[in-house]
């Protein structure tokens, strides 16, 4: 825990509040507890990518909608999509319930390992939250 919002150790973060978790078979991607709190009740997860598609770091791979608002999902790294969480199509609330687990969105086979260095560590992300969540 870092402050009010859960920040997981071992994960990396973007300033747009996505997380990237290095796994044996690629980089798993989702949105952070802070992002979920800001969105509120999530009603729709639109993944605009399918398995085999290429994504670029910092580019949108879909959108997430809550009762109030719509927000882009930005890929933390470049690479090929190797898995998508199809559960979210019928159960977007999984992102509210378990954003670092069952609410994962895509798995990416990263093509540029150097990009990981651009991401925020848990402590750096925790610092960012202190600034944005006043």
């Amino acid at each position, binding site marked *: 825990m870092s402050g009010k919002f859960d920040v997981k150790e071992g994960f990396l973060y973007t300033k747009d509040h996505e997380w990237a978790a290095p796994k044996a078979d690629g980089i798993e991607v989702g949105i952070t507890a802070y992002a979920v709190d800001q969105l509120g009740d999530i*009603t729709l997860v639109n993944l605009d990518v399918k398995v085999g598609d290429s994504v670029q770091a910092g580019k949108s791979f879909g959108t997430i909608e809550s*009762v109030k608002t719509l927000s882009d999902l930005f890929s933390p790294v470049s690479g090929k999509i190797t898995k998508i969480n199809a559960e979210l199509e019928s159960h977007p609330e999984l992102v509210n319930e378990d954003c670092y687990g069952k609410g994962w969105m895509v798995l990416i086979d990263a093509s540029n390992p150097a990009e990981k260095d651009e991401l925020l560590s848990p402590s750096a992300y925790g610092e960012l939250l202190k600034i944005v969540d006043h």
Partner: protein
Amino acid sequence: MSTEPELRRTPLYDEHKKLGARLVPFAGWEMPVQYRGIVEEHRAVRTAAGLFDVSHMGEIELRGEHAAAVVDYLVTGEAAPLADGRALYTCACNEEGTILDDLIVYRVARDVVLIVCNAGNRDKISAHFRKAAEHHCEFEDRSDQMALLALQGPRALEILGLAGKDAAACAALKSFQFREAVVANVHATVARTGYTGEDGVEIFCSATDAPHLWRTILELGNGRGLEPTGLGARDTLRLEARLALYGNDIDETTNPLEAGLGWIVKLNKPMFIGKDAIHAIASRGITRKLVGFEMTGRGIARHGYPLLDPRGNQVGVCTSGGPSPTLGKNIGLGYLPVALAEVGMRFLVDCRGKSIDAVVVKTPFYKRNDPKKSPAGDRGAA
């Protein structure tokens, strides 16, 4: 950002902070958008009750022998013949017949009329009424001294009734009636109006009394399902009830007839600002219509999204949209050409480049079960 103008705060700002509300900028005010969550608050209002702070709304008072006549000239409805203690949902138009604001006019006494306008239109409406009042009656913008709470939901009257004998007697008010009452030892005005599609009241009191009244009502509602409710739920509730939101569904580019507000325009009145223009529109017929729709495809329509005919040509625009917590569907309002605006007609919504299927449906999307209510009895302070 440092360049943003300072946001105004209602007398209940500290209460919202204490309750852990998320505060957002709205029409120049720092307002609670949610406390525990929009959907939870929405459900509370549909099943029990919700308490809203709507003190950001503007209150204008006209006093004097000609006060009612001045108001009558400025609005599309029949304000002059209102009986004491009666309120009227109406709008003020410009000479072109488009909407300056939608309003509630409260006939307090023969020579006192209170007008409630939208927060975002306060300066404009205040100036408009002040100018019209010149040489005819007294004008006072009382917005800064007054607070406004909305207690809404099937248990609203029951909870209000716990705030004292006089408050309990307010249950006898019919829709769009109001009276002065002592509520939790506070001198207030209680109106049977609202903006949620549920039964309920709106309570005017002084800014200084507002925190006490707010806290007391929340305490009385404890264990009765009452929740503090924010602007987020207010928006989803009003959308389900198809109550127009100024700035979204109506504005200075829309006329009341195409907005489905013909019922608040009285063209048989001798005169009012915009009458000639609206009469002309009525004679030649409207070209577009504000309709309710449901998304049949997977997508959520939002304010500003283009509406497309089945061939993909833009024919209209979505003015309000979002998920309906009560119906479990994605719904919206938008303007479509009259020929495409019939219930059952299919069209597409351009959701950020994706064309998603939608169908025109009957509105309101949600209507509460209460056979005693008049059909026009839902519209409260916007």
